[in-house]
């Protein structure tokens, strides 16, 4: 052992403590971090200086996060945990405040606001001036200025007070409302229109819009980061990490997903279906051999003088079930129906035929929308807009929907049919008509009910899933992609 070594470890000690806390936080957010990965991370940070924040972040990510879907969770936690470290990220960087020189540029030709000009920073600007500055920054795509404006806007509009028990989204909402980014977007586009001499073609306009969109998105992120920084300063990293804890995409609840989470879900479902299809195809291929093929064995025994030395087996023909999906697409459970339909059609090659029906209080067959279409998203969009599912008032009426189904399609259910019913069974106190479910179960191979509500809520209020469930071969709680994937996997 050399003498330098103890010194080195002692200087690293706070780093390791920090890392340990961070890993614990990742684990409680649901990321599977193993012990050896933890050790790797500790090893990795020895080679990367903490000051190089970006490299530091990627080094940690490379050792700790082994699934891209977890990246966002990691990033948020990282920002919380390490946001107050590194010089450029000090909270009130008054000395290095870009506004100091910005004001000089802006004040040229116009009167500086009287009074508190000496306050420094952007404090002295009127809201109009700040808005104008924001407009200019977005127009030029000036990132440094954008960051400064984000800082200023949060200070001014978010109304953050120490100790106030309000979530970050509230502050974000307040800040964004005052900045009116949509209005700024329109101004930006108008400005571009005027600048181009002979008008823009729709194509050019579209490109411009995308460009500004991405800049505004950038701005929004800056504001979020600023709010987070201030919250961390106020409450401490551990407490913040707890409030920020968001479910991983595969654990997001279908019924309560925010718009952003919906986009994430939609993105997550593509790789999921691909993986599922590959896995199922593989399973099928690697199935054991079928039963003995007597004819073929005798035929082949001829070449061994009548000794059946080479037994032949039939090719296995696993039954491909026919699937009927009956989905409630009323508001509260629409997202769930959408994802399930998407998943079922993505692996439709595993079934001999898939037929789908959607209902609210009336019922309509939508199989046609999916047939011969290779864009499932488009088909689902058509389901939502074109299907004729409203009978009286557009509130779920399971009983009536089942009646319609039974009258029109009941006779087509056969012993090869597996029926999936998707919905929360909240019937608005209409008649249940549970006898239809009983009849269906009688005729069909299997009948499953998938409910997107947590089990604890079943049979509360107007939910009558228990009444229907009595006649099903299984009722399942399917609240997120993870559960959905598991169900579909077992179905095949």
């Amino acid at each position, binding site marked *: 052992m050399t003498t330098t070594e103890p010194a080195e470890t002692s200087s690293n000690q706070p780093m390791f403590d920090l890392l340990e806390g961070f890993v614990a936080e990742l684990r409680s957010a649901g990321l*599977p971090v*193993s012990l*050896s*990965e933890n050790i*790797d991370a500790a*090893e*990795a940070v020895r*080679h*990367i200086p903490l000051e*190089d924040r*970006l*490299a530091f972040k*990627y*080094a940690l*990510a*490379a*050792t700790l*996060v*082994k699934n*891209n879907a977890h*990246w966002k969770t990691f990033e948020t936690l990282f920002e919380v945990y390490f946001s107050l470290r590194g010089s450029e990220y000090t909270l009130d960087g008054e000395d290095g405040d870009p506004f100091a020189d910005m004001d000089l540029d802006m004040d040229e030709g116009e009167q500086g606001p009287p009074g508190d000009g000496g306050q420094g920073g952007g404090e002295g600007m009127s809201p109009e001036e700040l808005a104008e500055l924001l407009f200019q920054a977005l127009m030029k795509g000036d990132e440094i200025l954008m960051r400064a404006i984000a800082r200023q806007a949060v200070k001014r509009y978010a109304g953050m007070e120490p100790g106030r028990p309000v979530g970050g989204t509230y502050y974000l909402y307040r800040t964004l409302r005052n900045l009116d980014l949509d209005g700024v977007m*329109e101004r930006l*586009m*108008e400005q571009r*229109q005027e600048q181009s001499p002979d*008008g823009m*073609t*729709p*194509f*050019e*306009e*579209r*490109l411009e*819009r*995308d*460009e500004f969109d*991405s800049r505004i998105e950038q701005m929004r992120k800056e504001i979020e980061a600023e709010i987070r920084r201030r919250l961390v300063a106020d409450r401490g990293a551990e407490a913040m990490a707890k409030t920020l804890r968001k479910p991983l995409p595969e654990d997001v609840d279908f019924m309560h997903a925010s718009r952003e989470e919906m986009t994430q879900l*939609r993105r997550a479902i593509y*790789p999921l279906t*691909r*993986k599922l299809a*590959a*896995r199922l195809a*593989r399973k099928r291929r690697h199935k054991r051999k079928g039963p003995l093929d007597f004819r073929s064995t005798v035929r082949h025994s001829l070449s061994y003088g009548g000794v059946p030395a080479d037994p032949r087996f039939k090719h296995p023909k696993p039954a491909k079930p026919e699937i009927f999906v009956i989905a409630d697409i009323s508001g509260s459970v629409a997202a769930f129906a959408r994802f399930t339909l998407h998943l079922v059609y993505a692996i439709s090659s595993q079934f001999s035929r898939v037929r789908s029906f959607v209902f609210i209080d009336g019922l309509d067959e939508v199989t046609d929308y999916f047939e011969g*279409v*290779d*864009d499932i*998203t*488009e088909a689902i969009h058509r389901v939502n807009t074109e299907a004729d599912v409203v009978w009286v008032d557009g509130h779920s009426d399971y009983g009536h929907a089942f009646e319609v189904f039974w009258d029109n399609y009941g006779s087509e259910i056969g012993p090869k049919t597996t029926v999936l019913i998707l919905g929360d069974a909240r019937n608005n106190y209409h008649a249940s008509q549970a006898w239809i479910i009983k009849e269906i179960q009688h005729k069909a191979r299997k009948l499953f009910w998938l409910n997107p509500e947590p089990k604890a809520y079943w049979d509360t209020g107007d939910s009558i899933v228990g009444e229907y469930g009595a006649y099903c071969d299984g009722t399942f709680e399917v609240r997120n992609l993870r559960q959905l994937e598991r169900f579909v996997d077992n179905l095949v």
Partner: protein
Amino acid sequence: MTHRFDSVDAVREGLRKVDYLADESIAGIAYLADRLQKPVLIEGPAGTGKTQLAKSVAEMSGARLIRLQCYEGLDEAKALYEWNYKKQLLRIQVERGDESGEWTEIKDDIFSDEFLLPRPLLEAITADDPVVLLIDEVDRVELETEALLLEILSDYQVSIPELGTIEAKQIPLVFLTSNNTRELSEALKRRCLFLHLDYPSMDREKEIVLTKVPDVTDSLADQVARIVRSVRQLELKKHPSVSETLDWARTLVLLGIEHIDEKEAVETVNILLKYRSDIEKAVKEFSTNSDAHFTG
């Protein structure tokens, strides 16, 4: 132990010299892979330069690239090593004429280095010169075959029952690529550094076009990158990859197009997109004006 790279910046500069534009994460992880002596698992959509990264790292560090292409049904004999049984048979037959030959002698003889056919993995381990080992599309092998890789990835050694354990003479830099068609095993992931290669940012894509496409003007590269970014925002079956972007830019240069407008875009979009439904969607999206009130 000498290291291949001095710093993250050195990696980035080196890669730039061989025309690979690395961003912060790519350079950082390549650097770490060398320092920690760990393999890198690269995951991401097709055509984002996963394989190219391994090739470029090999080129910049002057190492030999050994490539193992994975496919379903890959086994030990094709990945690790195989006994050259024809040669072994020959050897036995030669011995047979010679009465004095003892069986144990022959046995020791025929299971020696001479009769061993090294396959990519063994070759990478036993090489004397620096090598970069690329295990391409590792998600194509079955879950069970993955286990073959574990010993080599964590300890850089191969155990051959008849010979014993062969340890690496030098630690090769290992890259594994995956298109994520299935979940890789935890055991494999745990042993690797993980790098997700996504489509590049617009600025980086523009630079890639500028470096890779000869005779392209700055303004054309800019337009190409911007249009590709917009196309990637649509919900498509298959988003254009970097290589398709490059193909498209090359085509535009060949056609002598300097300014891309709707007409040019629609005419050449089939180079960028490969599915009919995607093409239709993109054409529809870009030729109709969705926000009519802005044109007034």
